[in-house]
């Protein structure tokens, strides 16, 4: 599944602390939980609502929206709108559905912010590296050079209101690094349209959006990914989102084995062991920024975060070294508190 190939930010290990909720709920608020497979991952929605029937319908509507976007943005499905765009937009402006236009437009924001380190046109390289991983051999320099000509977000022209043109003969778009975030935001809209005020949307652990707060709580307490297992950072979400990116470990035998995140500047999988978590107002922002900040690293990435409103980012190394930057949201280190809870 192509979504997985690039869209697989590493897993976010979180704990949502709702102690006391059960008693606070009484009969008024009921807990509803459902899951749905889409975009190569498991979407989960947990909600509190006085009417479980209404909550159930709202969640179904949210999932319907996610599946609709999956069909639109899938690279695997040849009949998807994205596949059609990738086949026919070379030197030809192609009309696309509003959601696809908006998702690509949002992606280009992060490409520009990162100076091209986040790039949705990296698909040809990602696919080639994926195939190389299956073979267990890295790509040759000549193959990389050939594919390099197909990559570059500057070659994507957005023609309002709904057309897109590629100024390259072989450019292809892969929304794996941002599509989940876009889908999560649309799912949140669907839940709100049904009047839900307390819900959590989780896209495979890598992108989470909190709508409101659990009953009787100030927010949804989420434990962030911590490769060191020492810091146990947490964030309290309320109408905002968190995403995590981390390069997947792919081999016990070969420490040089490559992971899934490709750096468009080096054309190679990133050899980094940091996990980065990003908090922001929307899931598309956290999804896009988490990959961007992973690629940029704490120094350059920290400078970017300081330019953005209401964003927090945390880099954690397997050795327990952390860097934290915020222009609003607070990331807490609740190490001792959480251990006492467990």
């Amino acid at each position: 599944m192509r979504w997985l190939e690039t869209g697989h930010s590493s897993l976010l290990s979180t704990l949502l602390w709702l102690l006391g909720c059960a008693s606070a709920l009484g009969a008024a608020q009921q807990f509803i939980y459902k899951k749905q497979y889409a975009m190569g991952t498991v979407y989960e929605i947990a909600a509190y609502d006085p009417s479980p029937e209404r909550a159930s319908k709202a969640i179904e509507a949210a999932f319907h929206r996610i599946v609709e976007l999956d069909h639109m943005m899938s690279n695997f499905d040849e009949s998807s709108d994205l596949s059609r765009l990738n086949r026919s937009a070379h030197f030809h402006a192609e009309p696309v559905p509003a959601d696809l236009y908006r998702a690509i437009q949002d992606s280009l924001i992060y490409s520009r912010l990162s100076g091209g380190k986040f790039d949705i046109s990296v698909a040809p390289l990602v696919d080639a590296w994926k195939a190389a991983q299956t073979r267990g051999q890295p790509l040759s320099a000549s193959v990389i050079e050939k594919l390099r000509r197909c990559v570059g977000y500057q070659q994507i022209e957005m023609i309002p209101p709904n057309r897109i043109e590629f100024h390259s003969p072989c450019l292809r778009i892969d929304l794996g690094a941002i599509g989940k975030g876009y889908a999560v935001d649309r799912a949140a809209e669907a839940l709100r349209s049904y009047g839900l005020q307390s819900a959590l949307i989780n896209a495979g652990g890598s992108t989470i959006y909190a709508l409101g707060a659990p009953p009787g709580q100030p927010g949804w307490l989420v434990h962030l990914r911590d490769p060191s297992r020492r810091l146990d950072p947490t964030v309290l979400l309320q109408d905002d989102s968190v995403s995590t990116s981390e390069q997947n470990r792919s081999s016990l035998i070969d420490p040089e084995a490559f992971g899934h995140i490709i750096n468009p500047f080096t054309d190679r999988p990133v050899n980094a062991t940091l996990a980065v978590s990003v908090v922001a107002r929307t899931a598309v922002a956290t999804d896009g920024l988490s990959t961007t900040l992973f690629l940029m690293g704490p120094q350059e990435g920290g400078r970017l975060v300081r330019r953005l409103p209401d964003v927090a980012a945390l880099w954690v190394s397997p050795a327990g070294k952390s860097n934290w930057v915020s222009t609003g949201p607070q990331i807490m280190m609740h190490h001792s508190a959480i251990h006492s809870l467990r």
Partner: protein
Amino acid sequence: MTSSMRIPRVILILACMLLPQPGWGRVLIRWTEPAIPSSHALGISDVVIDWGPQQQALIEAAKNKGFHVYTEVAAEEAHAEAARIAREGLAGIVVKASGSSPAPQNHQRLIQAIRSAYPKLGILLLEPGGKQPQMRGTMVVNRNGILEVSSPTRQPWIDSNVALIRFERVYDPPEAPLIGFEWNLTDDLERKLGPPPEDYLLAIAEAGAFDADLILNLHPKLQQGLAQGDKESWAIWQRIRRYIAFYSHRRGQHLKPLANIGVITDDYDVSYEAVNLLARHNIPFRFITPQEFASSPVESLALIIAWSPLNESSARKMADFASSGGTAVLVGGQGAFPWRSRPPIRKNENAAIYSEGAGRIVELSEPIVDPEAFAQDVRRLLKPQQVEMSLWNALTVLANHYQKSGTEDVLELVNYSEEPLRVQVRLKGIFSTIRYETPERGCCQPITPTQDHNFTEFIVPQLRIGGRVHLGRE
């Protein structure tokens, strides 16, 4: 007196004879509510009812309505209870094994002893460790209201019983393992209404596809609906029944899965996580007991993974296997192995790789810290021509490839996401005709394959939950 009790006994006997007989792919329904429809109406013959004085009326009603009634008894009490159960005219006992993980060696003697003493009783062994098959999210809700989000794998997390079933098969090959589980109902609505119908279908599909028998717990709401003739409940039941019928086709047969990877272990718990991930990645493997490894040929295998300690002769055999081109993977191996007299060709904190003749030996430190990476390593250690099966767009699909006859293979597919998928398959071997059947659409839709060297590729157009591909050789 119920109406069915007025039906002449001879008709009931005939009806029972016409009902499916015990065999592979068998589903026993656990019934807990006081009222039960007839066996004929449900179209199944076996029910499991808890043993106890308050259940006497239900047991009698079930017997009178044509069911073979089994009752569940703890292993420790099974022998003592058997006499009473036989006197009561029940069809058999489900012996609930003790412990939290399978220990087939310990229970086989008990089962044999009860069978010898009560030859007319059906004696089934329910192994512990069965779990609800499902695609898992990363949120976990517990009774204190804690939601936990975590996952040991990068792919969608799947709870399956495949490793358990295969482990059971090693120790008692002629018997289909009997698995069961409690439903994991996560929210208020599910607890009230029961699991979605698709979850019942998935449980039946998994057991059927991987050659196990199943005790299926029906939610009380569904039982009540069936007993009261509720239309919606019966519509759900018809779907369940269709799946039961679909997976009853192999009754009386045991089809051996095709696998060129051997896993030597006698400790299910130690190897479970890693073996589970092999199954999860559709890497075809079969368990081998240490005794079987010592005494049986292993030439048909391409790769052997050993969790059990190797004695001197087994280590020699492993070295011979590698010398002739095989790959051996030893997990936490301790001992003065012959290959250690030479330096490894590669070494890191997790692994040392030794060259051995035409093959190699990989020694991994224990425990395996990342079962996902381990599963990927195993696939990479195979040469391209040794990869028996590859699936694409199938992150939530588990597959089982059997050889049915000299001219036909069968590929069973189970989709744990319960959402329709278009699955691309590549199998080792040349198959000229491909036919696809599902419980929903019946048999059979022809599929056009393509052949590439010694491999066949095709696309399964729509896999919802369970599907079967018939592969014809020329």
